[in-house]
């Protein structure tokens, strides 16, 4: 359906859909370089999506992944500026942890207000996006502004010693972290006691009380972990792509991640696959501009994929079944 809608728009623009899509395909997954570019794009989508899905285990929505990505990156830069570690591998590890903690900190206030006062987390997490974005703008125009950036608002580059290495082609080491965290999230959600407790707490608060499960505590921890996942995405983005704090740390990854997580029904393995697909779509979208097609076509395809998936979900949820009496 997504391709169908994309084709119509392409035809309106007098471009051949087949040519455009084959070009998109070739330039997003057709070579080692293009494939690695796609997967690099997928990393923040997948990690933030996993965070959203963990928080959704207790039936809460995290709309603040975008802010968490930024605060993760800010935390990385803060630690980078203020610490001196000689071993690069330990240094990178510390910075990644800093990113995770930064993401958790970002969702801390929504988590507290949710658990203590019952404030709607959709609104508070959304609001933190604006706050963190404001803080980012302040930092890169003020205290962290790089004098060498020729007035472009950005912080100074981090040293090459903390760049994340690449594995194959341009594929960042972050992708391995991403695989690891996908497995972690899958385990946490589906195979652990904590995941079970989250499901019960999300299913019915009264059942949780009845079972002796502290539903608020589970919600609180789930939110901190979920925020941390998105923060880690920000850290990887900084250490492997932008190498500095700027507004380019995220291109709406935190919002696209909501789509990715929702399409897959909050399943970690699904998020990994769909996140990768979305990464490829976005790379494909940027390359089709070279033949004069707007990159927004890719956005339209993404959005129509979501619509399609949501409609399909509806039919999966509401099936007409024959019920046998017993």
């Amino acid at each position, binding site marked *: 359906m997504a391709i169908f809608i994309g084709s119509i728009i392409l035809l309106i623009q007098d471009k051949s859909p087949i040519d455009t899509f084959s070009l998109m395909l070739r330039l997003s997954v057709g070579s080692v370089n293009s494939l690695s570019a796609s997967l690099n794009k997928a990393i923040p989508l997948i990690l933030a999506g996993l965070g959203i899905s963990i928080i959704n285990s207790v039936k809460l929505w995290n709309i603040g992944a975008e802010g968490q990505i930024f605060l993760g990156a800010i935390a990385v830069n803060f630690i980078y500026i203020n610490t001196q570690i000689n071993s690069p591998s330990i240094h990178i590890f510390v910075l990644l942890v800093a990113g995770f903690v930064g993401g958790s900190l970002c969702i801390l206030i929504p988590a507290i207000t949710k658990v203590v006062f019952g404030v709607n987390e959709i609104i508070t997490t959304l609001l933190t996006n604006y706050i963190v974005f404001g803080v980012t703008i302040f930092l890169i125009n003020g205290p962290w502004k790089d004098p060498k950036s020729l007035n472009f608002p950005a912080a100074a580059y981090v040293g090459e010693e903390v760049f994340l290495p690449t594995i194959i082609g341009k594929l960042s080491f972050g992708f391995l972290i991403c695989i690891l965290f996908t497995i972690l999230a899958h385990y946490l959600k589906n195979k652990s*006691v904590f995941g*079970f407790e989250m499901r*019960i707490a999300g299913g019915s608060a009264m*059942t949780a009380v009845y079972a002796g499960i502290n539903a608020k505590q589970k919600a609180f921890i789930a939110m901190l972990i979920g925020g941390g996942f998105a923060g880690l995405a920000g850290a990887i983005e900084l250490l492997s792509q932008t190498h500095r704090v700027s507004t380019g740390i995220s291109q709406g990854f935190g919002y696209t991640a909501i789509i990715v997580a929702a399409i897959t029904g909050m399943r970690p393995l699904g998020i990994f696959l769909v996140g990768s697909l979305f990464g490829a779509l976005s790379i494909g979208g940027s390359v089709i501009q070279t033949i004069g097609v707007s990159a927004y076509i890719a956005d339209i395809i993404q959005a129509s994929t979501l619509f399609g998936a949501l409609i399909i979900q509806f039919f999966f949820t509401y099936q007409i079944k024959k019920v046998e009496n017993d």
Partner: protein
Amino acid sequence: MKQYILEAKNISKTFGNVKALENVNFYLRKGKIHGLLGENGAGKSSLMNILSGIYQPEKGSIFINNVKQKSLDPESASELGIGMVHQEFRLIESFSIEDNLTLSKSNIYQNNFKEAYEKYSEIFSLSVKPEKTISQLSVGEKQKIEIMKLIFNDSKIMLLDEPTAVLTPQETDQLRISLGTLSEEDEKTIVLISHKLKEIREFTEKVFVMKNGKMVAEELSTKDVTDDNLIELMMGNIQKSIIDKSNTAGDTKLSVKSLKYVDKVNNFKILDNINLEIKAGEIIGIAGVSGNGQVELANIISGIEVDYFGKILINNKDVSRRGVRSRKKLNLSYIPENRLGVGLAPGVSVLDNSIVRDYFKTRLGPHLSRSKTENYLESLINKFSIKAPNSKAEISTLSGGNMQKLLMGRELISNPEVIIASQPTRGLDVNAVEAIHNLLVEQRDKGSAILMISEDLDELFKLSNRIHVMFEGKIVKSFNIDDADINNVGLAMAGIVE
């Protein structure tokens, strides 16, 4: 024929397989207060909903002022002057009293609201300004506004569904006076639904009694009929136990000592000085109309509600200040009355729901072993013959009986010392009821101490060794099963203790 303002003849209504109403007749005289008495599920509310046009009957005819009504819907019923106050209030919480009262298009006091409001707030002895929003009112005040709404909408026939359920005794008294004034001065025809005999007696002139969807007594004159008669009509005959109760009781497993519980918001005493003792191999029944403190009692014993006075001992161990989990470790099981929502979590799989009680036993550190949990569910399914599509299916895909079997199985498989079973068979079909009863008796024979809270007298008489009757938060009477009969238990349930 003239004397009746409303006549309903041969009304029948079924929901699914359940006959809610069967050839029911009902007559109302203008300006009189009528009582409609019956147990929960007898069909009182269904009948009222038909008269107010919410449900359509399958059979039967309704005459209003001797004119046959083809079909009633809420709008036409309201135009004909039939108004109803539901058990759950239908007020708009964020609107003011005035807005709520004048909301309906059939409102007759649009222009002289002030005088009308003054007049009726005096009748109801209500002393709040009409600008106040509904959410600021107490439950009793909201009730008064609900009834006033009917007056403002020019209802001549007022159907009140359990209006006193939420009221304190003083407020109930006040309501009686207010309704009396309305019937005399405004010639309002009033129907009061209740299962409290005392109120029926004090409020009404005529009384109708329903049982199992049938009208078993029509238009009795309240002052000529005795409480015993009414109880018998309402409850019918009950077979005494066929279950052997000769097993000997063991040590005391559960004691509840001078339990007191106050609802902080309304400062309303929900439980007052409850004392209980249950021995191994005993089933103690708690009889009572729901809403007399039974849910709170069960929640306190199981550890869910912690803000109370008094002591709970399990196996002579004081657990008053312990949480849910430590009571579970002492092997207490709780089968809550709210099966889906409390006992089982909706939206969660059968597997997850099956391990809610014992999941800490199936874990290896933070890991929840899939094979152990699957085996656990498997054993529940086999032992308690539960029909479930598969372990990953959502819990509400199970039938009510299977849900309850899963819940009971989960709570009983560890052979608990103390079992609290609240309304264990409510809403289940005959076969499921039988299965659940057998489980409880089997568990009793294994030496569990069982507290069974139920509204179903059949069930209480069949299973219990002793019956305590709860009324307005107190145990008003206790019976050994051999001394109990349907009349004295029924009277105690209605709050009549000589």
